[in-house]
């Protein structure tokens, strides 16, 4: 314990007070445990942002230095990590970790030390119900994620049967419930509604219940693994719904194509806060820099990357505006109703920290690429395929 205490104290950089050293930004990232896949993408997003911004003069003329700690997807560790970042490493700002589960305790810590927490991947309702004034989510919050899709469905289809299934998760479930409430209010019948635990590895029974219902519309609150599995099961069950939307999975680029097969992707939809071809602020620069730094193609960039990048962008604009590293000035300014730009589109904060300007997109796989299809009038959407092609009918 002694050795630790000494080491913890000794490792604090002396740069805290100076205004000429780099601006340090602390983040706890989940590099192992349940969120490890997304945690890595989140870290890469922040790294891409720091590299980009540093190539463009940093913030307030100072270089950005990222300070990452790993939390193993555990709230216990996340609490320790943010305290270390703030009180030992004396970072100038903190940005959010991955997931609602971890954002909640870490925003409390940030609040305790008077730090603002700009986050992009913790949009579950519980984050905003804490009564904190220091949390700002640059992405669309959970209950609005599927709203663009639901509105489109109501506008273009007469009421039909809908099958819902979701993982019990503080982000996914509110997302699904949001869509279900809207659709039910507009006459769509909910014929299947199944919740399943995180530990589920065999999705075939749930898939076969949905297949048996022959519902033409399927809405799934999935993470990538179950997102892939459901499609695989539907194909095996020879059940091809007319409309299929999954919370995540189809947004995973080549990983998704590899998992479900290129011929089966056509028509599958996914709500998203970002896409590689977006014309939003600094997006093309981010995409090319990411590919330069981490390899791959634009299509295999995870949305987590863009979300993390957006959090950085909002921080950049706000700090450049207030011209200081004061967290209280930052909090005040973020609450002022100012509009910010990000790779995910405009950002404007409600008093509870939700982004009121967020326009959740809907994307659809068409001919082997994930195309921006909704909403009409934002960017350059491609016409939507109202009916999903049959399995195997090509991308």
């Amino acid at each position, binding site marked *: 314990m002694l050795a630790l205490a000494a080491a913890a104290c000794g490792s604090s950089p002396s740069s805290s007070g100076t205004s000429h050293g780099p601006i340090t930004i602390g983040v706890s990232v989940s*590099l*192992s*445990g*349940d969120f*490890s*896949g997304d*945690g*890595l993408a989140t870290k890469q997003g922040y790294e891409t942002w720091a590299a980009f911004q540093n190539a463009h003069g940093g913030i307030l003329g100072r270089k950005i230095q990222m300070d990452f700690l790993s939390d193993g997807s555990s709230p216990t560790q996340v609490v320790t990590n943010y305290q270390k970042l703030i009180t030992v490493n004396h970072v100038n700002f903190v940005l959010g970790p991955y997931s609602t589960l971890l954002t909640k305790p870490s925003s409390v810590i940030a609040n305790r030390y008077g730090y603002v927490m700009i986050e992009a991947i913790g949009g579950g309702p519980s984050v905003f119900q804490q009564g904190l004034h220091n949390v700002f989510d640059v992405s669309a919050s959970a209950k609005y994620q599927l709203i663009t899709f639901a509105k489109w469905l109501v506008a273009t289809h007469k009421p039909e049967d809908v099958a819902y299934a979701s993982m*019990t998760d503080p982000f996914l479930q509110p997302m699904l419930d949001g869509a279900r409430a809207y659709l039910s209010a507009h006459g769509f019948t909910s014929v299947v509604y*199944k*919740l*399943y*635990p995180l*530990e*589920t*590895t*065999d999705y*075939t*029974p*749930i898939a*076969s*219940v949905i297949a*048996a219902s022959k519902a033409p519309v399927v809405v799934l609150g999935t993470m*990538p*693994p179950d997102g*892939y*599995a459901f499609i*695989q*099961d539907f*194909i*095996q*069950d*020879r059940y091809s719904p007319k409309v299929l939307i999954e919370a995540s999975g189809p947004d995973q680029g080549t*990983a998704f194509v*590899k*998992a*479900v*097969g290129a011929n*089966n992707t056509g028509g599958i939809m996914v709500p998203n806060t970002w896409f590689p071809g977006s014309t939003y602020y600094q997006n093309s620069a981010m995409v090319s820099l990411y590919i330069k730094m981490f390899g791959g193609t634009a299509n295999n960039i995870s949305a987590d990357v863009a979300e993390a990048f957006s959090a950085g962008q909002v921080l950049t604009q706000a700090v450049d505006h207030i011209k200081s590293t004061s967290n209280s000035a930052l909090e005040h300014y973020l609450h002022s109703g100012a509009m910010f730009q990000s790779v995910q589109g405009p950002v404007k904060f409600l008093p509870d920290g939700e982004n009121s300007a967020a326009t959740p997109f809907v994307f659809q796989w068409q001919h082997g690429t994930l195309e921006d299809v909704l909403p009409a009038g934002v960017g350059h959407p491609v016409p939507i395929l109202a009916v999903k092609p049959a*399995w195997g009918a090509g991308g």
Partner: protein
Amino acid sequence: MLVLQAIIDGILVGGFYALMAGGLTLVFGVMEIVNFAQGIMVVLGAYLSYALFTHLSIDPFLSLVITMPGMFLIGIAVYWSMIRPIKQDRVIMSLLVMFAVGTIAEGILDLVFTSNLVQISTPYVNNSFTVGSLIFPDIYVYAFLMSVVLLAGVYYLLYRTRFGRSLRASMQNPTAARLVGINTDWVSAYTLGIGVAMAAAGGMVFGLTNSFDAASSYDLISRLLAIVIFGGFGSLSGALIASVLMLVIQDVVAVVWSPTWGQTTFYVILILILLVRPQGLLGRKAVRAQ
């Protein structure tokens, strides 16, 4: 019909769970050690088949010709380096040592393959055939058949060969086995090798039917342990029956009630069974004194 479909799904998936759990129960039966690393061994097997498939385009089923002997050797190495030196309190100490081995293996796998989820996706992974209105995914049928063949092979090895006799002798009375000249150390080493090789085969199927990363091992090991306890420690057929029962119960509950209650139901049944039969379904009767 849905229930019947769920039962069939449960049986098919249960087959390859039996393969993974069989390795665990065999090792326990012979050595009284709990191979807590079996979960990560399954994941290792999945990664090996994945790597051979993506880099050398070797079909996953064919890759077993390479991965199973490879993992067999790993099992032997783990025995001599980790299990053999344990002098006392084998059940608990082996559990802790194998937990540590699993942690190290998880770290290494994470380092080599990163924590991005991957899945082995062969062209035939989405195929299925129908009998009446029942659907049989090809991959599950192949996996089930392979599991049955491998389990039968292990069964033959146990009950029809000289090695099997010495293995069973070591299982029943290690001291007496040593007295009649059986090298129980090598028997144990081979057994762990076989157990881990079974994990390699199970892992290949796991990698074909699930997307996975190194952290997938935790869910796996808790299921496998439950199966082994349910079936009775040391019993191969018990593991098979318990795997199938577990999956059938979960799938049927998921269909008729809710997936969230599937696992709860299984655990409740597990507890009830154990209260009546503490040694599990087919476990050896004598539960040793504490």
